[in-house]
């Protein structure tokens, strides 16, 4: 039982990160119907920026906690600027073109960002300075660390903040209006360009936080770390119903838990026929099954009210 509980905890932490990244996919999709495949790379850039800033400041004598905070802020600002530029340079000129064009552009941007990061930070793995003290908790036979607790709580807080923003603020209302019908929204005086740009900026800020989380959780960062994470988060968004905020969160956490349980138990269930190297495949098997029976995702609605 404690092992089962431990796998749930493992999945919950991993799932919170997926959920945070999935929000970025789902917001952009909800508003403009674009799947921003470069989003995983924004997470990676966030992690690498925060490493560089944190270790530079820490080397200059700043206490690690404070340096980490600066690193986080720097990562968020850089990623917000990056998200804004991506939209302005790569996607806005293609607005109104067939849907495939911006999709391929997004894949292209993902490759460009990866290669830029490789040139800038090199091919080697980088170690992430431990931002939080190493505290281990033991509860009912399960083990978890302070970092894990912070990841789950911070993700929950950020998601709550995003829901508040979308449903209780003027910008949020403009976002929902644009999602429903961009043409009508603009006739009503909504500045579509600003709304779309702010979706990218907010999503990228969340991605930066996710990057710092992933980095400090595994204490490792690399220019390719964003690719698989982005793919999983995209899967989570589709699983929950892409375009739906609650769906992205539920999808992320569900995916994390399915993966952990899958890797932990598949060997026992199949008598060793399938092993834990099928861990990554779970994400995609689940995706295919959901799309077969409920193409709009678990929380997806057939029409309207996206974002």
């Amino acid at each position, binding site marked *: 039982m404690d092992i089962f509980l*431990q*796998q749930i905890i493992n999945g919950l932490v991993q799932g919170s990160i997926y959920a945070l990244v999935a929000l970025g996919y789902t917001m952009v999709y909800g508003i403009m119907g674009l799947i921003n495949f470069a989003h995983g790379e924004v997470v990676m850039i966030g992690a690498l920026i925060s490493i560089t800033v944190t270790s530079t400041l820490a080397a200059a004598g700043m206490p690690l906690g404070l340096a980490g905070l600066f690193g986080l802020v720097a990562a968020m600002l850089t990623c917000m600027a990056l998200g804004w530029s991506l939209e302005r340079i790569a996607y806005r000129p293609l607005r109104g073109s067939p849907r495939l064009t911006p999709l391929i552009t997004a894949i292209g941007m993902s490759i460009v960002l990866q290669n830029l990061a490789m040139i800038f930070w090199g091919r080697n*793995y980088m170690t992430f300075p431990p931002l939080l003290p190493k505290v281990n908790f033991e509860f009912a036979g399960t083990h978890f660390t302070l970092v894990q607790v912070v990841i789950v709580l911070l993700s929950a807080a950020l998601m709550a903040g995003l829901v508040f923003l979308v449903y209780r603020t003027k910008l949020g209302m403009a976002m929902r209006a644009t999602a429903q019908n961009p043409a009508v929204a603009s006739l009503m005086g909504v500045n579509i360009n600003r709304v779309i740009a702010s979706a990218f900026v907010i999503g990228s800020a969340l991605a930066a936080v996710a990057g710092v989380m*992933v980095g400090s959780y595994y204490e*490792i960062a690399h220019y390719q770390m964003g690719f*698989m994470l982005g793919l999983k988060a995209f899967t989570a968004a589709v699983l929950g119903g892409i375009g739906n905020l609650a769906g992205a969160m539920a999808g992320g956490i569900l995916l994390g838990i399915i993966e*952990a349980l899958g890797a*932990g138990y598949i060997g026992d269930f199949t008598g060793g026929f399938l092993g834990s*190297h099928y861990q990554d495949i779970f994400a995609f098997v689940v995706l295919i099954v959901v799309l077969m029976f409920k193409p709009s995702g678990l929380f997806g609605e057939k029409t309207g009210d996206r974002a």
Partner: protein
Amino acid sequence: MQAKLSVVALSVAAAFALSACGQKDAPAPVAAPAAPEAKPEIVVKLGHVAPMTGPQAHLGKDNESGALLAVEELNAQGLEIGGAKVKFQLVSEDDQADPKQGTIVAQKLIDAKVNGVVGHLNSGTTIPASKLYFDAGLPQVSPSATNPKYTQQGFKTAFRVMANDIQQGKVLGEFAAKQGVKTVAIIDDRTAYGQGLADEFRKAAEAAGLKVVANEYTNDKATDFKAILTKIKSTKAELVFYGGMDAQGGPLVKQMKDLGIKAKFLGGDGVCTPEFMKLGGPAADGEYCSLPGVPLEQLAKGPEFKSKFEAKFGYQIQLYAPNAYDAVMVIADSMKRAGSVEPAAYLPEIAKTKMEGVSGNIEFDQFGDLTSGAITLYQYQGGALNYVETLGGAPVAPAAEAPAAPTAPAAPVEEKK
């Protein structure tokens, strides 16, 4: 066969510093012109292949220097083979650690009608090139390719003077048993290297009476191992063996401690690097890993070779120079016994080699592997690798049981061996 980034990184610095202070660019055919002799002289050309450019250039240079030292010593001895005086000449080629380039230079050496080949350095280049040498009937002795496949293709021309990954897996399995543990869990990264090493470890561990309670798998890009580690925790394994590289092994050993797993950790050469210690941090302290070969200080002829090498070249041995030296000596010794420098004539003699090289005893089994490939165990301590002990490998397993998949180079430039 796999990456040893850290060693590479360390030695790059050294190599750069050294090459900066006045190296005259070793010319391809290297051999001091001997004084004119009354007797007719035969020139024996030996090919040497290693990456001489790129990130592993310092290792290639190291091998070449080892081979060069052997050639010059042989020439100074005034060796006679079949009644004629011979002069050895080293023809050095650069394969850039690239499998494609490896076959190109192999063909070049065959066309140049060399009498034998020392190389290549990497498994990834050695294996494809070995086919060409076999077809040409040209004896090949690799100083440092460890992938078992190299000698298991049925090529009678392929030899190596270093322990292979099968031998390493065996030593690790026996070492695990000596740690006083009863149950082990095995994780591998499903690459040819990781899977091969893990399979060999499993066989040896079971033979030594250990119970394998979990076989788990990951991949060479993973960062999260908590799910498989949690499962391992439930089996109460007392030791976790990892077949894979340092970039995964470091986070893995860290996550073991996070989950409160008290089991020991053990790994092969892929994690026996400073990079592993950097990524694993204090979690790695006190755990063990292995590297093929013996520390030079432990060998009868080692310290003498070391001082000769440093006196001649003015820089330190990087890694495999002693093995490259031995590879040349194995070829020369076989020619002497055969009384001929012709590949077809002296090839059968290589298999009968019995000599004490600077890197240890050299005797081949029917595949061309060392019968007693030595493996050295190290312990991680405070960010350093401390020598523990050296264990001689036992005879290799039959070819049928060996992993047949070739090394898939993960990076454009394959690292070491």
